[in-house]
């Protein structure tokens, strides 16, 4: 028995070493592969969830790249930002979506919930450092163990395909065009507000900690950072925690400029649903956003007043 146990142990250790070697090799190749290079002219990016992903069409905004992705929490924004800053010395400005849904406990599930970890871990795994692993392991150790091999396979396959840009190559963001207009049907299906409030009136310390890390990272590299809130329909449920949102903003992120586009009035036909703009809305908003940038609003005082006054 002793011999069997010792041999089994040695064999297991060798297997773990082999697997770790291949995981590290693949991750290293991706990390060192300059897969996050933006076009040379891109000096501005936006990070965040599906709100900016669908609202800011980079085809209408000069020197701008949309790097936001649906249900992407600040933890993943931070990982992405680290790589983007590392590979794009031309980066001058980073906009980060800061909206009502981003600050709540609900978003924790998007960081380490089973459903999201399944694919998000695979794609972000190469960019993670030990502390990032520790964070995920602390909250969902079994799932992290379970998806390691899927990550290895997917990343190896990605390298084989030789795709030049990680964010689009791995479907990790970029402007998402929505062609539908479903405000009315969304209103009918509107989530039960009573249940929702239980979730969205509790702040997520974990997610906000990584927003702070994003901000600090930008500052360390002398990159301007702005929090923005993209337009959402006035009847969107998440507005119901506005009080908490403003409290969080003023208490924890007072030092960061906040550009609020959330309540800009758009036509019903410009919304895809209550929380996203469709292709027409995105065009309208992106052209406006571009005009703000071009008129150097970002360097002026009273930005919010200018924004509200300029919107038509």
């Amino acid at each position: 028995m002793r011999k069997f146990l010792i041999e089994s142990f040695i064999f297991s250790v060798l297997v773990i070493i082999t697997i770790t070697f291949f995981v590290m090799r693949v991750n290293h190749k991706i990390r060192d592969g300059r897969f996050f290079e933006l076009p040379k002219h891109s000096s501005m990016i936006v990070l965040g969830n599906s709100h900016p992903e669908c609202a800011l069409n980079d085809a209408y905004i000069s020197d701008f790249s949309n790097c936001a992705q649906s249900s992407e929490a600040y933890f993943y924004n931070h990982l992405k930002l680290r790589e983007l800053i590392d590979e794009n010395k031309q980066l001058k400005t980073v906009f980060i979506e800061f909206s009502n849904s981003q600050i709540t406990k609900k978003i924790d599930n998007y960081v380490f919930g089973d459903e999201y970890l399944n694919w998000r871990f695979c794609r972000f795994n190469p960019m993670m450092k030990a502390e990032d692993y520790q964070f995920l392991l602390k909250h969902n150790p079994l799932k992290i163990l379970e998806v390691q091999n899927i990550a290895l396979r997917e990343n190896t396959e990605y390298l084989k395909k030789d795709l030049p840009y990680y964010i689009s190559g791995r479907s990790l963001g970029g402007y998402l065009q929505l062609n539908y207009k479903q405000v009315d049907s969304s209103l009918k299906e509107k989530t039960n507000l009573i249940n929702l409030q239980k979730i969205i009136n509790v702040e997520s310390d974990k997610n906000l900690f990584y927003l702070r890390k994003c901000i600090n990272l930008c500052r360390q590299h002398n990159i301007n950072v702005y929090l923005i809130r993209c337009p959402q329909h006035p009847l969107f449920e998440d507005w119901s925690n506005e009080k908490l949102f403003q409290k969080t903003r003023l208490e924890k992120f007072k030092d960061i400029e906040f550009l609020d586009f959330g309540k800009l009035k758009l036509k019903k036909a410009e919304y895809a649903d209550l929380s996203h703009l469709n292709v027409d809305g995105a065009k309208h908003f992106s052209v406006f956003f571009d005009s703000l940038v071009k008129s150097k609003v970002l360097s002026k005082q009273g930005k919010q007043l200018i924004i509200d006054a300029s919107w038509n």
Partner: protein
Amino acid sequence: MFFNSLSFAFFLPIVFLLYWFVCFKKSSYQNLLLLIASYYFYSFWDYRFLFLLLFSTLLDYFSGIKIGLSTNQKNKKFWLILSIGINLGFLGVFKYYNFFAISFQELLKQVGFEVDILTLNVILPVGISFYTFHGLSYVIDIYYDRIKPETKIVDYSLFVSYFPLLVAGPIERATHLLPQLKVTRKFNYEVAVSGLKQILWGLFKKVVIADQCAVYADNIFNNSIDYSGSSLLLGGIFFAFQIYGDFSGYSDIALGTSKLFGIDLLKNFSYPYFSRNIAEFWRRWHISLSSWFRDYLYIPLGGSKVKTWKKIRNVLIIFLVSGFWHGANWTFIFWGLLNALFILPSILMKTNRVFTNVVAEGRSFPSFRELFSMILTFLLSVIAWIFFRSENIADAFDYLNRMIFTADLFKSSPVALNDIMPYLTLFILIEWMGRERNFALEKFGIILPRIVRWCFYIFLVYKIYYFSGEEQEFIYFQF
């Protein structure tokens, strides 16, 4: 809990350590631990079905004792029929009721009657076909005085529910398994190492071969209309490897796991794709089920020692029942019928036992004749598998029709094979080299230095790890 899941990777070492370090002193402790572990293992799917398993166990346990104690034949027969009736009744309700209800409804529709027969919305309890057959063979064996009834309920329950074989076999016999449970198992290094190797090879077959072939087979079968001859043939071949890798892989893991506890299970596969005719194929494919049907159905019907028409009848019955055992669908029944038609000529010409040895025994390569026979037998099995895999008989015929009569049968297929071919080649090569052994990896590379063998095993583990993703269910779990 699947054998290829993370939970099993934790479960097995824990049970193993408890078995050999805590419960090693007496067989009763060992059996109790294995029984608890087996029930825990089974309740991972749905704890409610555990009650069905317990009921079936108790029924056969008490029926066995009653049959054993009865002095008159009438009583014996009563308990036998009661046990068989209730066991098959459960199987019928859970597995076949909807099939019969719908088939009857359609039959009535054909003759002009529109009726709405009640169908049941029930889930098939995992392993019901397997543990029912365990119980049946047990009471039948007692009835025919082949064994004495088991009085220790833990031992009997373990015979039925032993976790390596609980959900997909092999279908054990009381005469083989129960005596092993009566003695205290002692740890044996060679047996345990062999068990680990068998588990490794089983996982490779399941995760690398079956699950990867499934990607191709599913794609081709689900979109068969888009493919022509050569690709459809490939689809059939991929499915043949998928089902073999899946089921024999499962059996290898089951046998290997059991070896870790010092318990030997019946061999279920013996390189069926290296068979030289269909009769040999059926002696090598799902051996525990084939021999079950042989012993409890075919031989009681008279076997082959009867008149020709009865021989034909018996062969048809055994294969139709075997097909039906696999599932409540006409495709399985037709699959059984097709195999009966393939095997009948050799039974009638008494050539079914021509090949009882291993092909090319003691040689590295087969003769041309052997190779030709093996390819022909394999292709016949592929044709039968097409029925097994298809949604319905019409689809199967359409598939077969397109496969044979589309012009490009011998042109190259548009299906890209680069990803799977190296593994498939390695798999066939190792199976061929190990065909005289209990499992292919048993003595593979035994003459090589340990470091080389270990490197190869690590390569296999790495590939299993690499290809295992979302847990893929074993095909035979649905039976």
